[in-house]
């Protein structure tokens, strides 16, 4: 589904030039759950941002089911993103002024889903995420785990083809972290492709494939046999 070739990204400040991505090649098949690992500053978050069309690389190619995405303009990128992608962040990034329900509703509004259907879809996902009694609460009134469930719910409500997760358990304790990982696995089992950036090998063990980055290069790729066997 995703075909990335020779991706390069350089960050420039007044004095320093940092190469974040240095000729990355990466393929992700539909329905796959891929973890990206590596030390701090290896370029994994940059790669995720480029995949999520939040950042533009200097050169290379990024094809999503045969559509080249790097040539799109800002508007087209926005449109593509809202139709095909969902995001989960380490720090949840919920809008503080909106309730749980309203936060989850937001991507549907941008996708111009009619109000009646929006309500149905949000209620469905709230039930699935087990946060029904929290739907009128504001983010600050929730625990970290609950906030991340809302963030996952928000990422899933549009039924995206691809979910990008940036250290989704980074701000959670281990039990809440596990809950979130299990949620992602369930999601993956229903056919959603997931790309996750993580520091934790425990979290990575939930995925089908683990890609290791260092200094902007892919240095190794490992098939997670245990998970694949589990699935079989």
């Amino acid at each position, binding site marked *: 589904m995703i075909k990335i070739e020779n991706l390069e990204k350089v960050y420039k400040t007044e004095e320093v030039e940092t190469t974040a991505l240095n000729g990355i090649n990466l393929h992700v098949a539909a329905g796959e759950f891929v973890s990206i690992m590596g030390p701090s500053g290896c370029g994994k*978050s940059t790669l995720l*941002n480029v995949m*999520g069309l*939040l*950042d533009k690389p200097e050169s290379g190619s990024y094809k999503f089911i045969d559509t080249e995405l790097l040539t799109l303009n*800002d*508007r087209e990128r*926005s*449109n593509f*993103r*809202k*139709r095909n992608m969902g*995001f989960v*962040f380490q*720090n949840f*990034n*919920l*809008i*503080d*002024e*909106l309730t749980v329900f*309203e936060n989850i*509703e*937001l*991507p549907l*509004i*941008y*996708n111009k889903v009619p109000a009646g259907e929006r309500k149905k879809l949000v209620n469905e996902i709230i039930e699935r995420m087990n946060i029904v009694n929290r739907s009128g609460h504001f983010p600050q009134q929730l625990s970290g785990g609950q906030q991340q469930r809302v963030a996952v719910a928000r990422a899933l409500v549009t039924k995206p083809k691809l979910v990008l997760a940036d250290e989704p358990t980074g701000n959670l304790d281990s039990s809440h972290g596990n809950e979130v990982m299990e949620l992602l696995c369930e999601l993956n089992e229903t056919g959603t492709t997931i790309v996750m950036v993580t520091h934790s090998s425990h979290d990575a063990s939930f995925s089908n494939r683990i890609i290791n980055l260092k200094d902007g290069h892919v240095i190794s790729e490992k098939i997670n046999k245990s998970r694949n066997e589990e699935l079989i």
Partner: protein
Amino acid sequence: MFKLNLKIALRNLWRNKGIAAINIGGLAIALAAFILVTLYFTYETSFDKENPNYENIYVVGITYPEFKTNYVAAPFAEAIRQNFPEVVSAGVIKDSAFELTIKKGKNTLFTKKILQVSYDAAKILNIQPANGLIKPAGETERLTYLSTESMKTLFPNKQDDEPEMVGFGASTSGISGVINGSIKNNLHSNFTFDGVSIGNELGKNDHYNMNDYTIYLQVKPATDVENLEQKITGLYRTELLKDKSEEKSIKEIKGISTFLDPLANQHLKPKAGNDAPYKILIAISVLGVLILVIACINFTNLSIAQAGKRAKEVGIKKVMGAYRFQLTKQFLVEILMQCLVAIILALIIAELALPRFNSLFQVHLSIWDTANGLFWKIPLILVLITFCAGIYPAIVLSGFKPSLVLKGNFSTSKQSYWLRNALLVFQFSMAVIFIIGLFIINSQLKYMRSEDLGFNVNQVVYVKNLTMFNNPAKFGSIDFEPVRQKMLKVPGIKSATVATFIPGGQNGINSYAANGIKANIDFVNVEFDYFETLDIKLKEGRFFSNKFKTDTINSAIVNESAVAKYGIKNPIGKIIRGCDIDYKIVGVIKDFKTQGFENAIQPTIYTIKDPCGSFKTEILLKIEQNKMADVLATLKAQWPEINKLDGEDFRYVFLDELYGKLFKKQEQLESVFFTAAVLTIFIALLGLYAFAKYITNGRLKEIAVRKILGATDVQLLKLINSSFFYLVVVANIVSWPIAYVVTNMWLKTFAYRIDFPVLPFVTTTLITILLTIITVSIQAKKAVNANPVDALKYE
């Protein structure tokens, strides 16, 4: 989506109540000031505008070598109408020369101003009695109408508009006449009155040396006014040559020209008058706009400062697929709503401030008057300030990159940092200019109140009187001496005199020659004790005295300026010729400021006898300090016996009050500057307060680290204050030259003024620095007192 954005906006405002209140409140106060200024500007620039011929009406004035005047001989109006086809109509108007007492039964009315209007002038100027404008019959009939208020005083129970017989002057005078009905006195017009007397033709048989009417012309639309002006000058010179009474040489006549002054100019900047009201109006309007600009800058600055709080929202929305345009629109709508709230608040504040404003400017403005055009101006202002205050923050906010802000790497760019500093400097510069201005206005007014005027208006009562005290008698006037003796018998009256004009009013102007020089100078016809009553200082010679028989025949006293004007050396005993009389100068008085501080003291001649002069009617009495009340009571009781011809009504004004009116415009200006200075510094400080909060919040980590490394509270406060300190110093330096130029320009409008002071500049700098340090420190203190671990943990 709009509903959701609205929710975000409202919840955001609620969460940042403090800043929102500062932001909206500051804007509302400035808008209120702006609305008041707009109302005032509209009012002041629309006098007589409802006249359908407004654009085509002109005053005919005369330019003499020394001055300009609107007073012209009445027959010239008819001459213009006959000679120039582009003149549709020409009419004349004259103010009443004195106060008139009108009586009906027990009711007495004192009129200050009965306008004498020719029928044509009434038509041109839309002066319409309640029962319609009627053409008086023949040459002599006068139709007299009283203003609605005057009618109420005289006929409290009158329901109809039928003519009424009334008595004029003292009840013993036996003079009666007819009041033909009522007429509305429009306060929003150049022609205000207690009553109007309309005649078919006024002053028809006057000579050209009797310049006591004002001529109004109505010209055809699209008339070449400049060309007409030249033709009228030509006509005027021809008429002067024809007129036997005006014995002017051809050379003199060539130095005289006429001008046409549009009706639109009359209220604020008549050519034959001063344009101070216009300048003040412009100054006030500029102030209004500046205050609004400062508030908009605040709004912009605070909105950008708040941007950090909205960055995450922008990031998330962009991730969800929002376009930048949508976000820009969202923020603009948000700012529009805040501006809307500010405008509603502003209207409330303006409504509350209007009574004070109206009394200060002596106007009757109302927000609810549709003629002021607020109903279309308010939406326009709303859109304009939303755009000015909101466009930049909206663009900055919607421009955030989601990949950065969602990681928490939020910082507004260096460019906006410079812009914000520049805006802050601008705000403070304005505040500095206003404060310096206020100080300087204050010093000048203090100087005006304390400076020796050269005469003393205290304890002097000006008695209004209808009796003419010219000697030798003309037009039924009588000798003043018997009346004076009667008044001096009242215990407490130190001296009594009568003159043609009172200090603070306008003097007469006539031509006098001395030392081979002929010039138009001021004249005042007086009686004995005039100089003693006003405590005017003698420079050389003597005052008038009844010991010298010649004083009532051909003695003159001149002031220092007159001596200088004619260049007379050893003036005592020298001759000054005017009105066919060779006056002998018996005394020279020191200059005294009869016209306040704005106008230079005019060369003036004082004489007792003057066939070309005016009527001596203005009685001045010097009264002992603790006997004022007794004296006034006695005069009131005995007035009919003392001054039989004036009748039973004793009317008086304290001269110091009258003279004080000359200061009124400047005192208005002081009030306006005081308000402007307080508003600008207040709004600038509000902005600074919020801005300091933003800056300190951005430096929380730095403060924590410094604290851990051992910085003391004082060191930290100094650190945070230093950048603001420099900004305020820069603002002061930038505004000094501007403040110097502006205040110096204002001071130069005074003939008598203070030396340019330096102290206001130093004081203002100290005040602004002090206020800045206090404001910033209040904010910084919170950050400095916070536990450093909290700031670092947050990171």
